[in-house]
Structure formats: structure tokens, C-alpha cells
């Protein structure tokens, strides 16, 4: 390495040193530690004692009577999280994109509409949990009052009904799509107007312009939002923790909630670490699939 190059390296390292130190202390070290813990029996005061794959086996494939494998609560929480993601993720992607397209139409009061859609995403999770518990309240809530006035005789109990609790949480998550809408709007502003004009001259109607100009042009933004949504949805914790505590009948026990319980209520920290690593691997796998698929539908403009 030449002297000039070395000087550049020194300068660069000096500037990024805060992140580099933080990365080692607050990320790399804890990640490595938790990988080790996941192979140990580790209570708060005892251990960590290496136990090989015991935690993973207990979680996933330890045989039980009646043909069951592993920890039923683990599988249940995983199933719940995917069930929620299967509703909230596509709905959130569609609603936020749709809203962004509407909010991108130039009209009187646009700024007001944009602010209104964005406001709920500012609400702290705990506060919005309180608010929606009240709205979803089966006996006194506004939602059931509205449904009954519309002629629904026996509206669902929402959070107290195992079948409806999860759809209710997914529906509620749509209230907070404002962040995503804002990111879409920023992307839409960057689509050159010449492209629309050219498409219009070529006789393309509204839907064809959307399909052949807008969507391909903002596909990198869609991709970014998809990745963020995958990472976020699989970690949902605060809202269901407060609203349902995992109930009724564990119907809304999310993965992170069961993990938290293992770590800090049952003090099975090795077990919890194994769960955390499984969560990380699931996120990595899904992100990898998204990246792989992106070759077929994400169009990057040549710079």
C-alpha cells in the first residue's frame, strides 16, 4: 500500500470509528455470545453449560406422544407470526402504495390529506394499543357500535375471540402505514414527467401508464419497503403484548413474545437465544428470497 492510500485508510477509519467500535461491542460480540448461548443451558444465576443441540431439539424436533414434535408453544408462536404476516404484510404493501398514488395526484388540499395519513404513524405503540383496545372493545367499542347500527346483529368479540383477534391486529396495523406512504411518495416524485407525457402521446391510458411506467420506475422503492416490512413484521412485539398479552388461548402469542417470556420470565436464556437465532435465520432466508426474486421485477435505472 502506498503512503497516500494508507493516509486515506487512516482518515476513513477515523471517521467511521464510532460505528466500528459500536458494531463490535453492541452487535458483533452480543451476536456471537448469543450463538454460543443457544448451545447452552443458561439460567440467570447458573451456567452457561454447553448442551449441544439440546435447545434446538427441544424447540423443533423432540418427539412427543401423539405424533407431535418440539415445543408446541414455539410452533404456535411461529404459526401465529406467519399468519399475521400473511395478512398484514400484503395488505400494508397494497394500501400504502394505493394511498401514495392517490396522494400523488395534484389537487387542492393535498398537503392536508398527506398530513392526516401520516399522523397515526407518529403515535407511540403503547398509546395506539390503548386506543384500539377501546375501539375494539366487544361490549362498548365504537367499531361494534358502528357494525350494529349497520345491522350486524352479533358482531365479533374481536380481541376476546381467538378467531378474530389476529385479523383485528392486522387491520389495526393499516392505521400506521404512513411511514411507508411517505417513502413511496418520495419515490413517485422522482419519476420523470417526460415518461408520462411520452406514454400519453403513445396513447397509453391511466392503467397502462400505472402498470408500464409508474410501477417499474418505483420498483426499487417497493423492494426497499418489502424488505423493511419483512424485517418489521416478523419482530412484532409491543402492540399485541399490551393488547392481548398473547391471548385469547395463545391465539395472538407472537414469536418475539414467547422469546421474551423464555428469556426474562422463565429465565431460560439459552433457550431464548436459540429462538433468537432461528428468528434471525428465518429473516435472512426470506430476505434472500426477496433479493433473488428482485432480479425479475426490480428495475434499476442506469446512472
Amino acid at each position, binding site marked *: 500500500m502506498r503512503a497516500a492510500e494508507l493516509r486515506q485508510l487512516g482518515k476513513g477509519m477515523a471517521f467511521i470509528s464510532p*460505528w466500528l467500535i459500536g458494531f463490535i461491542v453492541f*452487535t458483533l460480540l452480543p451476536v456471537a455470545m448469543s450463538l454460543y448461548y443457544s448451545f447452552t443451558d443458561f439460567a440467570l444465576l447458573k451456567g452457561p453449560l454447553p448442551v449441544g443441540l439440546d435447545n434446538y431439539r427441544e424447540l423443533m424436533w423432540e418427539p412427543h406422544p401423539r405424533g407431535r414434535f418440539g415445543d408446541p408453544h414455539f410452533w404456535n408462536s411461529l404459526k401465529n407470526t406467519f399468519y399475521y404476516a400473511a395478512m398484514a404484510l400484503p395488505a400494508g404493501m397494497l394500501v400504502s402504495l394505493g394511498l401514495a398514488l392517490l396522494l400523488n395526484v395534484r389537487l387542492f388540499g393535498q398537503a392536508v390529506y398527506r398530513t392526516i395519513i401520516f399522523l397515526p404513524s407518529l403515535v407511540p405503540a403503547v*398509546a395506539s394499543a*390503548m386506543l384500539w383496545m377501546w*375501539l375494539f372493545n366487544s361490549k362498548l367499542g365504537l367499531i361494534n357500535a358502528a357494525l350494529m347500527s349497520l345491522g350486524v346483529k352479533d358482531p365479533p368479540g374481536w380481541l376476546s375471540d381467538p378467531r378474530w383477534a389476529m385479523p383485528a391486529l392486522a387491520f389495526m396495523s393499516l392505521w400506521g402505514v404512513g411511514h411507508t406512504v411517505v417513502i413511496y411518495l418520495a419515490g413517485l416524485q422522482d419519476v*420523470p414527467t417526460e415518461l408520462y407525457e411520452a406514454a400519453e402521446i403513445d396513447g397509453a391510458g391511466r392503467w397502462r401508464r400505472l402498470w408500464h411506467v409508474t410501477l417499474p420506475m418505483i420498483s426499487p422503492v417497493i423492494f426497499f419497503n418489502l424488505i423493511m416490512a419483512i424485517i418489521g413484521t416478523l419482530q412484532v412485539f409491543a402492540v399485541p403484548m399490551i393488547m392481548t398479552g398473547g391471548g385469547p388461548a395463545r391465539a395472538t402469542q407472537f414469536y418475539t413474545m414467547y422469546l421474551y417470556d423464555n428469556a426474562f420470565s422463565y429465565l431460560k436464556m439459552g433457550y*431464548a437465544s436459540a429462538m*433468537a437465532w432461528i428468528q434471525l435465520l428465518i429473516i435472512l432466508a426470506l430476505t434472500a428470497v426477496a433479493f433473488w426474486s428482485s432480479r425479475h421485477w426490480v428495475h434499476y435505472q442506469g446512472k
Partner: protein
Amino acid sequence: MNGAQSKQAVGGAPREAPLRRPSLLRRIWSAEHWMVHLALLCISVGFLMPFVWMLLTSVKTIEQAMKFPPEIVPRPFVPENYVTVLTHPKMHFLLFARNTLIIAVLSVLGTTLSSSLVAYGFARIKFRGRGVLFAIMLATMMIPFPVTMVSLFRIFRWLGDNGLGQWLGTYKPLWVPAWFGSAFNIFLLRQFFMTIPEELSEAARIDGCSEFGIYWRIILPLSRPALAVVALFTFMWAWNDFLGPLVYIQDQDQYTLSLGLQTFQSMHGGTEYHLLMAASVLVILPVIVLFFLTQKTFIQGIATTGMKG
């Protein structure tokens, strides 16, 4: 990249104007235009409804709040609910607000300074290994908090046991990491820094300005909107955080608003919704006010940063 594009668009506007005008008029009178208006109006009402209901419930008596079918107008009007919440013997609202504010302000200061410094390194200094390190940094965004949660708890306890300061039971685990930059903020600021013309740095370098001087005196002042976005996001994040305080804070006097509100709710078994709504309004209000105060800078910042990835 984005900066250059938006400049082009601005430069192109006057030429397009004569072509634009008739189409704008046509648009205003078109049925489509009104349909979009109508759709947005309905959606906005839907998005605002929870807020309205929260405000209305917060000024009702408990008897009226519990009526079914619900009555819309609060009668009698009871703003005293807010006084009840603020002076509640169990919900030390002002104390919790102060605690949350301490964590939020320290996090905002730390992450704005450190993330911008690191972002400068990634955006403006060419050095060997930069690409790899940047990729690693982006990858860390995918690591779920539970992966580090247990080990960090151990690390903070170990630090305390070995005379390296008290960590558990203090706010330090919640704000100290912010002083080492956060991947999302670094990414955002780097995208913004890359749009600032290199010539500015070159000119300063010729005048004998150090690299740190360029960062501090040229890049930072030019990046106010992006820094505002980072600051606001971090503030909101710290204000909203639930899992972090839940793990690291034990003493009730040290509770944040999120923890306090949750405790308040579980204490009352979900019956005193009028007080719960008043407390929620008080928790939400600071963030909303902050948003309206910084709205202009915020929107400018989002439009110009690489928020879109």
C-alpha cells in the same frame, strides 16, 4: 443522484408551463379528479376517527364513556380527567415524561453527531474496504433485537460487576449505543452527503481545511434537512420504545411513558377508559407537536434524502 434529478426538474418547469396549463384545468373539471378527492376524504375521515374518539372519550365521565350505544358529544364536558391523570398517585406522568425526555434527547444528540460523522466517512473518503464495511453495516439492520437482547443484558451486568460503572437499572443501556451511530441513520445521511457537490470539499481542501473541518463547517450546515429527519425519527423511536425499557429498567421511578402507560392500564384492568384515553393523548401530544413544528424541514429532508433506498 437525487439532487441532480430534482434540479433538472426545477430547471425544466418554466419550459413546460404553457403545455401544462390546459391539462391542469382539464384535470380540475374531470370526474376522475373529484373521485380522488372523494376517496381521500373518506379515507381521511377513517384515519382521523380513532383520534377523534380518543379525544371525545378523554373528556367524558366514566358513566358516559361506558354507555352503549355510545354517545358522541361529551356531556358533561370533563377536562378535569387530564388533571386526574397528571396528579394520579400511581401514574407519575411528569416524572415519566422527564425520564423519557432524558433518554430521547441523549439519543438524538448522540446519533446525530456520530451517524453524520460515520456517514461522512462512507460518503466522502475513499479508502480500502469501504464497500465491504458499508455492506456489513447495511446487513446489521436485519439482525432482530432479540438476538442481541440477552447478551447485551449480560454485557451490561458484567460491566457493572467489574467496576465499569452502573448500567442495569440506569438509562445508559438505552442511550449510550446511540452515540455509536445507527445503521439506518448512517445510510440515510450518506445518501444525502453524496448529493453535495465534491467541488465544495475540493475548494475547502485547497484553502487548507482539514477533513474534519470540511465535515463540520461545510457538509453539516448544508445537511440540516437530513439531520432534522434523523433527529425526529430518533426522537420518535426513543419516545415510542417499549421493549428496550421493559428489559433494562426495573425501578418504577425510572419508568418511561410507554412503560408507565402500560402499567396504568394493567392496574385499572381496562375499565377506566376515560382516564386511559386522557393519558394516551398526553403521551401522543409531544410527538405530534414536534412533528408540526419541524414539518417543513422534515418534508424537505425526506424529499432530498435517499429515504427511498
